[in-house]
């Protein structure tokens, strides 16, 4: 089959010849983006949590010094990885590690590592902000019933912070889906690399990248919808059921006051 003359025909041709390559490329893009975002979130949470550990004058001097050093190192990590392009980091880490330390990492390891460490740096700031944005009253309420700092974080603060930063996590995933294309510089055969190969071989840049654009958009759009649905699920229903079978029963129990509103806001 030879190359058709018209645009749509060419697209059809590319799809029939290279469809599986495009799909494999898209699959790799998604795999790197999702794994990188997940690990990045874990790193971000760890760093963000450490950065918000309260230290006061009453704490032991050793603890204060140790925490100070750890926080400093984490700050450097965050600033360096936020402040340099991921493409440069990819070259630096992948080729640098083998040239300087003789450490030849596999290309997959490099891909996951670079995206994770990058996302981690961004998420650390987001998580820190998310934690600080929770009303201090929540912490006091938890302390007042005897929860320790760790219990307070796990049961009260982090679930609320996580909910608040969900849109940011989604944002990061979408950015990662798009930005994995910079990994082509170290030879990761993801969607962009695949497309470039197809386009160059047949000199069909317009058609090949049309296909790539559509795939990228479908991937990001689907992810953003799924995340939005998940957010709504986390919020729970707007209404609640009164836990009584008699709907006319007086709901306030022991005293009378005007009828309770069923919902607010």
């Amino acid at each position, binding site marked *: 089959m030879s190359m058709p003359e018209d645009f749509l025909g060419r697209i059809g041709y590319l799809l029939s010849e290279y469809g599986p390559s495009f799909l494999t490329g898209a699959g790799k893009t998604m795999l790197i983006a999702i794994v990188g975002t997940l690990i990045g979130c874990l790193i971000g949470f760890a760093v963000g949590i450490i950065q918000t550990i309260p230290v006061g004058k009453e704490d032991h001097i050793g603890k204060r010094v140790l925490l100070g050093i750890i926080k400093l190192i984490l700050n450097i990590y965050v600033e360096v990885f936020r402040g340099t392009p991921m493409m440069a980091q990819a070259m630096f880490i992948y080729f640098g590690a083998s040239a300087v330390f003789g450490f030849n990492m596999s290309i997959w390891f490099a891909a996951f590592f670079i995206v994770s460490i990058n996302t981690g740096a961004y998420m650390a700031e987001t998580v820190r902000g998310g934690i600080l944005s929770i009303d201090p009253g929540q912490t006091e309420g938890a302390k007042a*019933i005897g929860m320790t700092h760790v219990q307070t974080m796990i049961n009260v603060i982090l679930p609320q912070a996580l909910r608040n930063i969900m849109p940011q996590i989604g944002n990061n995933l979408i950015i990662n889906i798009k930005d994995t294309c910079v990994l082509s510089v170290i030879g990761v055969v993801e969607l962009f690399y695949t497309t470039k190969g197809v386009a160059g071989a047949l000199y069909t840049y317009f058609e090949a990248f049309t296909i790539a654009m559509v795939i990228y958009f479908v991937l990001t759009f689907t992810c953003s919808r799924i995340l939005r649905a998940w957010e709504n699920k986390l919020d729970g229903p707007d209404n609640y059921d009164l836990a009584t079978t008699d709907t006319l029963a007086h709901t306030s129990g022991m*005293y009378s006051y005007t009828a309770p509103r069923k919902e607010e806001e």
Partner: protein
Amino acid sequence: MSQENILEIRHLSKAFGKHVVLRDIDFTVKPGNVTCIIGASGSGKSTLLRCINLLETPTSGEVLYHGVNIADRKVNAASYRSRVGMVFQNFNLFNNMTVLNNCMVGQIKVLKKDKETARKNAMAYLEKVGMAPYINAKPRQLSGGQKQRVAIARALAMEPEMLLFDEPTSALDPQMVGEVLTVMRTLAQEGLTMIIVTHEMAFARDVSSHVVFMANGVIEEEGEPEQIFGAPENQLTREFLSRFIQG
């Protein structure tokens, strides 16, 4: 020894930087006592309560709980707080949990009760404050008075020996104040030891066994409610109360 003091505060002082907020506070709380702390805004009432619950660290002095100084660094603050509850002006209900879970989480995580026991216990106290029908609601779906009643149930579910209230009705609309005060009256009648910071003078007069009047970080006068409200000796107490009686 039922007359042993639950709480004994000795020479308690608290400063934020150079700003001295509490000066040489002394008072005691006996089991079953309802102590109301009254005084002008900024006189240090909240700070005193927060020092008692270790939400603030006293600068000097002692807070003896059954004779043990809990201001001492070696004391486990979390386990002490699980025995002394606190109800806040702004409720501080956990926004990520339903009403029922708000009342269960402390029992499960702190007191290590099993889920079923915790649930039964939480239901009993929610029933008591009239919030049992609302167990599935989230705090944002409740009115202020309802939130505060849940907050009281949450504190009670820990079965504390003493409960601290910091202006529990100040953030409420007038018609909701009554529902919260009714709950607190019931608790007082049942003999729960309470320390209540309040601007509700009629309530303080009716319910308290002991009244503490504070001004500018010191206790100016304390005594039985009949004496404080009926025949205050201190000039500052008289001025403070006359403003309330006029208003």
